[in-house]
C-alpha cells in the first residue's frame, strides 16, 4: 500500500478517514456479534457461557497485572499529593489534598490508569494469542468445525477483561488514596494526613464510585474488543502478530482516552 506519495493530500486524508471508518465499522460489527452471543448465553438454554474459559482468562491476565496496577496506582497517588501540596499550602489548604485525590482517583484516574495497564497486559496478550491462532489455521479449523470463533474466543475474553477491570479498579482506587496518605505521612506533615481518611470519606459520594466503575467496565470492553479484532484480522505470519499487538495497545489507549472524554462530558451535563 505504498501509494501514499502519489496521492494528493486531500485524497490521502480522505483515504485515512475512510480507513478509520471501516475500522470502527468492523469493530462495531464484532461488538454486535459478541453481544448477541452473550445474550443467547444468558437467555437461552441452547448456548451456554463457558465459565471455565472466562475464569481461565481472568486468572491469566488478572494475576499478572495486579502487582503492576497496584504499584502504578500507588505512585500516582504519591505524585498527586506531592504536586498539589505547594500550591495548596499557599492558601493553607493542604487538608484538601485527600478530597482532590479521592475524587480524581475514584472518578477517573483509578479506571483510566488501570485500563492503560491492562491494555498492555490483557490486550496485547489476547491479540497475540488470537493472531497466532489465525496464522496456525486454527480459526479456520474452528469455523470448518461449525464452532463460532466469536462465541469461543471473543466472548470469554471480553467478559474476562470487563470483570478484571471491575475487580482491579476498586483496588486501584484504594492504592491511589493510600499513595497520597503515605506521602503525607512521610513528607508533607500532619495538615495533610491527620484528617486524610475522614475528609476523603466526607467528600466522596456513592456516585463517584459507580461512575468510575461504569467507565471501568466500558474500558474493559473496548480493550478486549480491539484486541480480538486486531487478532482476528492478522494476516501473514509472525510479523502480522507483532503488528497486531502494537496496534492493540495504541488503539486501546486512544479509545480509552476518547471514551473518558465522552464520559466526562456526559457526567458533567447530567451532574453525575
Amino acid at each position, binding site marked *: 500500500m505504498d501509494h501514499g506519495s502519489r496521492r494528493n493530500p486531500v485524497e490521502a486524508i480522505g483515504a485515512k478517514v475512510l480507513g478509520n471508518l471501516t475500522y470502527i465499522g468492523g469493530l462495531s460489527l464484532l461488538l454486535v456479534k459478541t453481544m448477541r452471543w452473550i445474550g443467547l448465553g444468558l437467555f437461552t438454554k441452547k448456548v451456554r457461557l463457558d465459565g471455565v474459559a472466562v475464569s481461565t482468562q481472568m486468572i491469566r491476565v488478572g494475576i499478572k497485572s495486579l502487582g503492576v496496577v497496584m504499584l502504578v496506582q500507588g505512585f500516582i497517588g504519591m505524585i498527586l499529593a506531592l504536586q498539589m501540596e505547594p500550591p495548596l499550602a499557599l492558601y493553607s489548604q493542604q487538608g484538601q489534598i485527600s478530597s482532590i485525590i479521592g475524587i480524581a482517583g475514584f472518578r477517573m484516574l483509578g479506571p483510566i490508569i488501570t485500563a492503560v495497564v491492562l491494555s498492555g497486559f490483557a490486550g496485547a496478550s489476547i491479540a497475540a494469542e488470537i493472531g*497466532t*491462532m489465525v496464522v*496456525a*489455521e*486454527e480459526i*479456520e*479449523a*474452528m*469455523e*470448518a*468445525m*461449525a*464452532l*463460532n470463533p466469536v462465541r469461543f474466543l471473543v466472548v470469554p475474553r471480553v467478559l474476562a477483561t470487563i470483570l478484571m477491570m471491575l475487580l482491579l479498579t476498586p483496588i486501584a482506587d484504594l492504592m491511589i488514596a493510600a499513595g497520597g496518605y503515605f506521602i503525607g505521612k512521610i513528607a508533607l506533615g500532619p495538615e495533610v494526613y491527620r484528617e486524610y481518611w475522614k475528609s476523603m470519606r466526607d467528600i466522596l459520594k456513592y456516585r463517584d464510585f459507580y461512575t468510575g466503575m461504569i467507565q471501568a467496565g466500558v474500558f474493559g470492553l473496548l480493550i478486549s474488543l480491539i484486541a480480538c479484532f486486531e487478532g482476528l484480522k492478522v494476516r501473514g505470519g509472525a510479523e502480522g502478530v507483532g503488528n497486531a499487538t502494537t496496534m492493540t495497545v495504541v488503539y486501546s489507549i486512544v479509545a480509552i482516552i476518547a471514551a473518558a472524554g465522552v464520559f466526562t462530558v456526559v457526567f458533567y451535563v447530567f451532574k453525575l
Partner: protein
Amino acid sequence: MIQTQKNDNPIPSAMPVARMVDLVKRFGDHTVLDGVSLEVYPGEMLVVMGGSGCGKSTCLRHMIGSMSPDEGHVELFGKDITDMDDPELDTLRKRFGILFQSGALFNSMTVGENVALPLQEHTDLDEETIDIMVKIKLEQVGLREAVDLMPAEISGGMKKRAGLARAVALDPEILFYDEPSAGLDPVTSAEIDHLMMDLSQKLGVASVVVTHEMDSAFRIADRMVMLDKGRVLMEGRREEFEAIRDGEPTGDDRIDLIRQFLRGDSQGPITQRRQASGYEEDILNAALGGKL
C-alpha cells in the same frame, strides 16, 4: 449394464457428495481459479494435484464454504452453499471433516480435548461416552497414549494424525485433506495414506485429497484431477494418469506437461514454460545493469 460401468463416470447413478461448478476466484487482479469444475462421489477418493500456488488450497476452502467464489457455485450434499448464511452452513459443516495442512490443532488444549471438542459441542453425549469415543478415535490413528499431551509436545506426523482423529470425530460423510503427507518421512506418510484409505473403505467416506506427493497420490486415488493455471488440465481415473506417467512423451504439450509433473522430471514443458517467461533475460538484464 456392463456398458454403463465402462462409462467415464465411475458411479453414474449416484449424486455427487460435493460438486464445484465453473468456479472463478480472483484476488485483486490475480485470477487464481478460472472456471474449475469437479465432483466427488460417495466412497471415492479424489486426489487434486497441481504445482505450488496453483490454487489447490483455495479450491478446498471453497468446498468447505470458508471462501465465497466470484463466479460459479459449490454444492455440498446436493445443496448450493454459495449464498448460505452461517447457521445453515453450520449444519452442513457437522457432516464433513477437514484436515488442514498444519493439523490446526487448538494449541491451548490437549490432544484428547481437541478430539472431544466437536463431540461436546455438537452432540448430546455425556462426558463418559465422549471419553470413550475420544479413546476410540485416537486408537484408530495410533495415538491413544498421547491423549493428555499438548500439541506443542508432539511431532508433526502426530499432529496430522491427531487432526485426523478430530476430523473424523463426528463420523463425517466427506473428508477434506490439505497435503496430508507433506513434510513427513516416507513411512509416516504411508501410514497416513493407509489411515485415509481405511476410513474411506471401511466407513464409505468420500475424500478429497490435495497433494503433490506423487507416490502417495497414486497409492490412494480412485480418481485424479490436475489443476494448472487455475483450470482443470485433466480429470480422470487413476489408471488413465498411470498410463500417461508410464508412457512415452507424445509431443502433445498438455499430455507431456502432465507427464512431467507426474514423473517429477526436471526437463519438459513445465520447465520450458518457465524459461519462455523471460526469466533468463530478466536476470541477464539485471546483471548487465539494464544494458540489454
